[in-house]
């Protein structure tokens, strides 16, 4: 209930590119994808280490999709969102909405699972941490429409 209320307040006009994120089953969908990724990886590598790979792949892909690619594929938006990344378009740019909290908690959770599910002698912990920091910093409210050093401007 609170979730729907918050949404309707924060996105007065529809942006077809990101509106599906507000769908009822989206969180389930996201968690399922991450679990499926982990399951697939655990065919190739030990189950514990698979979380490390899942973490690295998840962070790389989500960084590209959420924080790198700008604009929408929707023709009728007339370039309205061309300077905004997917993350900046979600919930009309509002911060700390439930969707954005969810998007932020997922990589942290994957990281914690990854660090605890395999021996530290087997996993590149620093790499895990750096990739996590990259997506966390990009999600900070202070980074809204900020392009550090003009990267990806």
């Amino acid at each position, binding site marked *: 209930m609170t979730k729907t209320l918050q949404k309707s307040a*924060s996105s007065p006009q529809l942006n077809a590119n990101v509106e599906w994120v507000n769908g009822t089953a989206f969180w389930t969908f996201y968690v399922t994808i991450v679990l499926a990724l982990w399951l697939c990886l655990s065919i190739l590598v030990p189950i514990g280490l698979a979380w490390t790979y899942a973490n690295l792949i998840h962070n790389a892909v989500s960084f590209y999709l959420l924080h790198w690619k700008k604009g929408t594929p929707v023709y009728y938006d007339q370039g309205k969102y061309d300077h905004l990344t997917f993350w900046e378009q979600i919930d009309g740019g509002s*911060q700390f909405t439930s969707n954005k909290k969810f998007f932020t908690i997922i990589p*942290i959770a994957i990281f914690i699972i990854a660090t605890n599910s395999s021996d530290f*002698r087997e996993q*590149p912990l620093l790499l895990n941490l750096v990739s996590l920091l990259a997506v966390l910093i990009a999600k900070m409210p202070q980074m809204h429409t900020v392009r550090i050093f003009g990267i990806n401007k």
Partner: protein
Amino acid sequence: MASSVKENLAWCWERRNRVDEIFYELWSNVRPGGRLHPAWFFEAKGHLAVELLLFAVIFYLLTRKSFKPRKEKPLTRQEQEELIAEWTPEPLAPSVYATANDKQNLRSRTKGQVRKQIRYARAPVVKGKASAPHVQIGSKRLLNLVSTNFLNLADSERVEEECVAALDKYGCGSCGPRGFYGTIDVHLELETRMAKFLGMEEAILYSYDISTPASAIPAFCKSGDLIVADAGVGYPLQSGMALSRSTVRYFKHNDLGDLRNLLDTIEEESKLGKGKDTQRRFMVVEGVYANYGDVAPLREIVKLKEKHGFRLILDDSFALGVLGETGRGSLEHHDLRPEQVDIMLASLGHSFGSVGGICAGSRRVCDHQRLSGAGYVFSASLPPYLASAAVKSLDIIEEEGKEMIAELEAKTDRLRRGLTRALSRSRTLRVHEGMGPVIHLQLVGEKATDVSAVESMQGLVDAAARDGVFLTVAKYTFLDRYEGPPSIRIAVNVAHDEADLDRAVTVIKKVASKAGLV
């Protein structure tokens, strides 16, 4: 060949190995036990600190309230002052430029010179009615060859009386859009009468002629659709086509060969599978071109559109009430059936002497616009007295149209022939061949592309005004894609005397020879 493939493969392999090396170098740093692997950190249970910190982040996140970031930081007082000092206001109305050449030249000019041009294009102030056959400018009474009041209905007392009666009955405005308390019986009367007059199933009334194509065209043509248009169409049609977001392809003005080529190209392209299968295709032409004063070869165009499966949108603004024996426009002139044109647009602002636009066609065409014609749905409807003025004009055209149109045609012919004869030896001034009461006196040859082309035309207009003939240079804005030569537009009114027209010819010849153009 084979060796080069081998070489390429070897190069790729080498390249791959090098990428592998770089990747391995990086990995060897961060891998478990690598140089950058913080083993000491784990031994001191440092990872617990990291995890604790991350849990703290989660807790922080969950306790935050959502908010919308401000778009910009507020400006400081000093910044505000600086911005205000920097700002120079633009003119409220966009400046008017006479032709395409002129606007191209102006783009490269400096600011001060642009200002000069704006002053230069300023319109003279007319005392009293601007549409009358003779107008008062300053202390002078001039022959008016500017107003497109062809049948003199805008100046007719009978129409005026009708207007006054309607004002007494309905008041001035219509108080809303047609679908929202803005429909009044005269609107419906005008629509049915117009449809009957044009021989169409139905007609729909818009409150402004320039917004009629801008509403009617986007109601039917959508993104991905195709419009084939004459390159000489006027600004209203251009804006309608632009707003429709369709693909617009132009053929040379009144050039049937070019049109055929273009249609064949399109046919070939669609055979190759380019473009959508569900593409709607339209052809956009004017009956009488406002920018040229000539008539579209409509019979051939209709044949071509039927052959290639296009729908025809015809703007008959300058032909309605003027062309054809009884003033029914291009269709009557070319002896075509009404259903051969799919969508017909016309302005009520020229020969009908009122305000507004009409779109006529089949019942489905008009009904569709009652919910999708932007100007019909969202704009206040035509003031009732203007609708009743148009009805009265229609009455007059139906009753006495034949004689008036024959008279107008004779007078136009007289002026056109007179001007052609007077300027027959001129290499720079030419009367554009055509029909209908709009005559364009074009500047051709080298001088037409000169920077001062329009200025010399304006010089002619000013000199003619001193001799008692009121003319105008055809003006275009930056938005207009008009590509023709600069011209003086002459409009004949049925109330002009033949002596007046002869005098106009003499004056134009005189000022042209004085300017060295004959």
